[in-house]
């Protein structure tokens, strides 16, 4: 089996958010970046577990600038066999999907793994775009994946529960919590990652479909109104009369 794991970079959840260029560009100065947790903890680790159990080969792919290589090396330390970086600055979901689909078509993968979404934009756009561009089924928000030969049984999260589906390779799967247990790279993995191949490719041209107009930061929330714990009638009154929510 050939596995492609798409990894993305996102600001750490605790990062302070600011914008430059007339509020059109995210200000990355001083921002701590991490590998998107859904990509790292669930998608990559499940691919690795399948490789360990049944053999196979894992390629990591990232679309981004050279400073993304820290995250790519971490992915290799966790267990990718090799990596590809498509060289681009601030790519859109549509741009990223086209690059990944283009690479995937030439290489022919059995399973393309992504996280269910990135934690900065929460769009869940890339897995569906890739699936359409490579003409594969998509199983999104997968919280379990069992593979037997080329047949997969997958549990996907839906509103208020789960759905169990069957599908044959090749397919695209987007990972939610539960697909695997997070792994921390060990020293041996970190050392080995340094010598694993990391290929840099130039992107194909893509016509963009959307553009950022601007970002807005909401006004800071007014401070909390505290209610006496002995007087819950007052809380009910506030929710009814002031917040008008009940």
């Amino acid at each position, binding site marked *: 089996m050939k596995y492609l794991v798409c990894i993305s970079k996102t600001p750490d959840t605790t990062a302070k958010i600011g914008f430059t260029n007339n509020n059109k560009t995210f200000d990355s100065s001083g921002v701590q970046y991490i590998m998107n*947790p859904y990509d790292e903890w669930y998608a990559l680790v499940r691919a690795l577990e399948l490789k360990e159990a049944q053999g196979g080969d894992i390629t990591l792919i990232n679309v981004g600038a050279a400073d993304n290589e820290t995250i790519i090396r971490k992915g290799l330390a966790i267990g990718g066999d090799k990596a590809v970086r498509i060289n681009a600055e601030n790519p859109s979901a549509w741009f990223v999907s086209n690059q990944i689909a283009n690479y995937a078509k030439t290489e022919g993968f059995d399973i393309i793994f992504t996280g269910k979404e990135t934690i900065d934009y929460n769009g869940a756009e890339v897995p569906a775009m890739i699936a359409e561009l490579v003409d594969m089924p998509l199983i999104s928000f997968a919280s379990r994946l069992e593979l037997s030969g080329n047949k997969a049984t997958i549990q996907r999260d839906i509103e208020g529960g789960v759905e169990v589906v069957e599908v044959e390779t090749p397919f695209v799967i987007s990972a939610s919590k539960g697909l695997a247990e997070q792994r921390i790279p060990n020293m041996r993995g970190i050392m080995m990652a340094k010598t694993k191949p990391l290929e840099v490719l130039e992107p194909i041209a893509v016509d963009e479909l959307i553009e950022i107009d601007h970002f807005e930061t909401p006004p800071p929330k007014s401070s*909390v109104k505290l209610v006496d714990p002995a007087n819950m009638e007052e809380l009910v009154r506030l929710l009814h009369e002031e917040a008008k929510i009940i």
Partner: protein
Amino acid sequence: MSVLFLAEHQQDNYKKSAFEAATFSKKLAEKLGTTAIGVVVGKMNNAGSLGKYGADKVIHIQSNQEVSFDSQVYTEAIAAAANQSSAKVIILAHSSTGKALGGRLSAKLKAGLVSGVNALPDTDGGFKARKSVFSGKAQGIYNITSDQKILTLTGNAVKPVRSENEASVETLDVALPPARISVKEVKTVQGIVPLPEAEIVVSAGRGMKDPGNWGIIEELAATLGATTACSRPVADADWRPHHEHVGQTGIAIRPNLYFAIGISGAIQHLAGVNTSKVIVVINKDPEAPFFKAADYGVVGDLFEVVPKLNEALKAFKAAQ
């Protein structure tokens, strides 16, 4: 020209997201001087009722059997309806279904996609759609430059407006491709509003001390007609089912009213709930970070406060 929206349904009942999409599409269609058309895929005996929430017409893509969800099949169906109705804009719910379709349709139709939209787009000199980004810490406003546009609509962003209109239903025969995904089993909780749709959510965390203590939470939720949720440590410890977990690695919700009971308010939890319209925090620790994100706070022992709140709410409801 039209605004086309996918109306999700379960058997013969539309989901709440279908009514939200209908009302949103109608408002957008009025801005654009066109009509709002719903598309329903698969068996459904009640298609015309969508008119009550704003659909001018419903395109029903029929099938003798239940069409289970395969994003490729649905993409073909919606693309056919979009073609039939000359759709300028396609609206999907930001749901497990809509998220699996948005990117596919965008790629198929080369139509720009903004997902998780929370307000009507600004259509004066462009098509600018707004969404919450960076864990609710900012709003991103995107201009869709392609001719055709796709939006996925966040739950609870629009209040469905009901009238007595019925929509005409037009059946469209589409040669749908065979599904490559077969659905073997669907396991959902019955009789409860799913979390992403819930208008009121009562959520509890480690402060509950023991899974056996959840009775007071369930009673409060019952009084409010609310859905229960929980924090990550509680789901990880199997105190509560996985599908109740809200937060960054669980599900993101946007109810009108969110009660956080015995939850400290780690940033990863806040990321999934901080776009709720009103947040009430009950916690014995006055330093709990959640109070900074709250509209109303109660510093006290939840085992005393929650039953008192429940009694006060019952008295309020009885007097209504």
